[in-house]
């Protein structure tokens, strides 16, 4: 099994390095095929590992020693258990599909080879993140995906907005990663190790306040990666990257790393329900907060990005309330239908010459039937309609909230479920139905390549059927994760009905409201619309109260401290030496007699010093 583990882990990096060989060249078709084949290899190896783990075997290997200093020992260790193998399957499956899809999507791009190199490097980092058997290895993967995300958001680096978005994402993640690093340091400091098995066994014996501090710091790291409030603004801006990147990184895999961290640290978070409750509350808040922003947005990808944010909130509610397997289940289901939704949006973008405003589309169903059907499947799954994947996972999260008697959380999520259905179908209606407004703007849409659609079809199938395996899934992951006791058997059917009702209600409202195209522009002058379209003015607030003061502070530091103190003192040292040299160069007259005189002078000085010091030394000792 070790061999399969190594294949699953290292096949993507081989692909990335291979693509990097052709990095500076224009499109080389073989790069796309080789990287896709290697990611597929990784998928096959992960499937073999899934079989092994299902048979009860947990694969744990130590590749080599990484850091060994005194008592501090960290190996390059990898572990494949129930949670990891689920993550590996999700990552490699979505990656394979996105790679194949990208062959078509990036067809005419100059950076074709570079794109595949970055994309495969991302998959490798993600595999390190999920497979590592210690926190430090996870952190390396964590940073790796951050770097690849930066590279890919800023892939079209000649665009000012893309580089800005890339930097924003990177810097926000840096802030969170600092907290995460502190969490890891604290873990080592209080438990003496960063290996999962050691710290989870140790966690119950250490001081509770220390444990809570560790939990909070690790969660701040998770907040950055999973774009939770207040570090959420980067995710919507990250949509500047190519759409396959949004599908893979900013929907299916990287942004769920935060949820993965909380699930992975389940034994620790189980010991501190107060932190868990905070996580759940924040999750519920973000779920609603993001959904409201998605209601009015006029950018296809940003709507889906807010939806991702909202669904991540759902996952955190489940994870925070101790229903770790539910969070993992929703993570998996969400990865499938959200990646599908993004890839569909990519097809629409391709058809519309990169136009993203659904108001300028309309009636695309006639020209893009397959894409439309795939996106409708994904949206129905996202809305949580029986019997698609989203129904099972989202319903369970609501049940979790209800079961713990957290009625406020439940209510928030319930309303959000309605909003989710509404904005998903607003998007569908504006894009695919109604009047063919794109004709007024001179677009000539066309369906995407056949193989791109074929590549998407497995996701569509999974978006439909993933929920049907709930019982097998529960049995499988609860071998490792704690089980969750539901106290809702008496109201289960009512909850399901109520949730489905609001989801259906949202869909129907959207269809009725948008059946004739976009609403009149009258209500765009209303306060609520303005707040939502401006993302609650949070980017402006950040700009005004954080970025501007920071810039001014940096200016002061640059002009006052750096230039007047640091630079000046360094310059002073240099000029002193220069002037001394200038003043003493007369000594080097080349005359032997003068040199001998200087030699004698030096001798006298040294002798005097030697005598003076020895006298002083004797005086002190004596």
């Amino acid at each position, binding site marked *: 099994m070790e061999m399969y583990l190594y294949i699953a882990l290292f096949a993507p990096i081989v692909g990335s390095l291979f693509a990097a060989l052709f990095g500076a060249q224009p499109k080389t078709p073989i790069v796309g095929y080789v990287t896709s084949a290697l990611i597929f290899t990784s998928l096959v190896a992960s499937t073999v590992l899934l079989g092994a783990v299902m048979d009860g075997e947990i694969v744990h290997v130590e590749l080599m020693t990484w850091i060994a200093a005194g008592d501090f020992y960290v190996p390059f260790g990898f572990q494949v258990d129930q949670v990891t193998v689920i993550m590996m399957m999700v990552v490699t499956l979505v990656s394979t599909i996105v790679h194949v899809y990208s062959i078509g999507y990036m067809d005419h791009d100059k950076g074709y080879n570079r794109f595949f190199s970055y994309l495969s490097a991302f998959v490798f980092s993600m595999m390190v993140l999920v497979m590592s058997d210690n926190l430090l290895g996870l952190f390396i993967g964590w940073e790796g995906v951050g770097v690849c995300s930066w590279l890919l958001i800023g892939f079209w680096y000649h665009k000012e907005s893309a580089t800005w978005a890339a930097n924003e994402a990177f810097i926000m993640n840096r802030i969170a990663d600092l907290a995460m690093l502190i969490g890891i340091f604290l873990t080592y400091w209080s438990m003496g190790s960063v290996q999962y098995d050691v710290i989870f066994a140790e966690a119950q014996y250490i001081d509770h306040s220390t444990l809570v501090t560790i939990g909070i710091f690790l969660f701040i790291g998770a907040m950055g990666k999973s774009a939770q409030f207040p570090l959420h603004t980067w995710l919507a801006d990250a949509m500047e990257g190519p759409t396959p990147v949004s599908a893979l990184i900013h929907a299916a895999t990287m942004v769920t790393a935060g949820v993965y961290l909380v699930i992975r640290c389940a034994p620790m978070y189980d010991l501190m329900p107060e932190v868990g409750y905070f996580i759940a509350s924040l999750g519920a808040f973000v779920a609603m907060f993001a959904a409201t922003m998605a209601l009015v947005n006029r950018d296809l990808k940003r709507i889906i990005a807010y939806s991702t944010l909202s669904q991540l909130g759902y996952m955190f509610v489940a994870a925070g309330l101790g229903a770790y397997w539910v969070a993992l289940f929703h993570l998996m289901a969400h990865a499938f239908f959200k990646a599908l939704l993004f890839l569909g949006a990519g097809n629409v973008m391709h058809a519309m010459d990169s136009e993203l405003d659904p108001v300028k589309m309309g009636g695309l169903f006639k020209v893009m039937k397959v894409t439309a059907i795939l996106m409708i499947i994904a949206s129905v799954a996202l809305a949580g309609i029986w019997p698609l994947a989203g129904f099972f996972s989202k319903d369970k999260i609501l049940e979790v909230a209800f079961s713990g008697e957290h009625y406020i959380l439940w209510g928030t999520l319930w309303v959000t479920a309605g909003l989710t259905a509404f904005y998903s179908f607003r998007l569908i209606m504006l894009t695919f139905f109604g009047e063919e407004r794109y004709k007024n703007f001179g677009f000539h849409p066309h369906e995407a390549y056949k193989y791109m659609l074929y590549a998407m079809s497995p996701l569509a199938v999974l978006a439909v059927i993933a929920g049907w395996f709930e019982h097998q899934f529960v049995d499988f992951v609860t071998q490792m994760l704690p089980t969750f006791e539901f106290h809702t058997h008496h109201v289960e059917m009512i909850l399901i009905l109520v949730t489905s009702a609001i989801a259906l209600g949202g869909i129907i409202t959207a269809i009725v409201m948008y059946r004739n195209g976009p609403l009149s522009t009258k209500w765009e002058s209303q306060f609520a619309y303005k707040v939502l379209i401006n993302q609650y003015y949070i980017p402006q607030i950040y700009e005004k109260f954080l970025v501007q003061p920071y810039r001014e502070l940096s200016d002061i530091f640059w002009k006052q401290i750096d230039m007047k103190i640091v630079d000046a003192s360094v310059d002073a040292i240099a000029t002193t030496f220069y002037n001394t040299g200038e003043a003493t160069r007369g000594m*080097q*007259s080349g005359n032997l007699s003068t040199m001998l005189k200087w030699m004698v002078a030096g001798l006298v000085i040294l002798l005097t010093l030697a005598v003076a010091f020895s006298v002083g030394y004797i005086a002190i000792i004596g």
Partner: protein
Amino acid sequence: MEITLNHYLVLSTILFAIGLIGVMRRKNLLMLFFATEILLNSVNIGFAAISHYYGDLTGQMFAFFIIAIAASEVAVGLGLLVLWYKRNGSIDLDMMSTMKG
């Protein structure tokens, strides 16, 4: 008056000072060699006197080494001096400034 160690050391110091002044003041290369010899031998006096005072032969052995080194130094130095004189016709120190930067 008995001659003590101090007398020898004073003699050594005086000779050293003479040698040092010679090294600094003289412009003739040959005179410079003489001054160097005086320096070396002043040290030899010091070595021999202290060696005798402590009854330890090491100092005297060292003095012999210095004599040998001084002899070889002078032998090489005089050879170079003669060669220099043949080539330039002068052994004035102030004329030897080809190394001036």
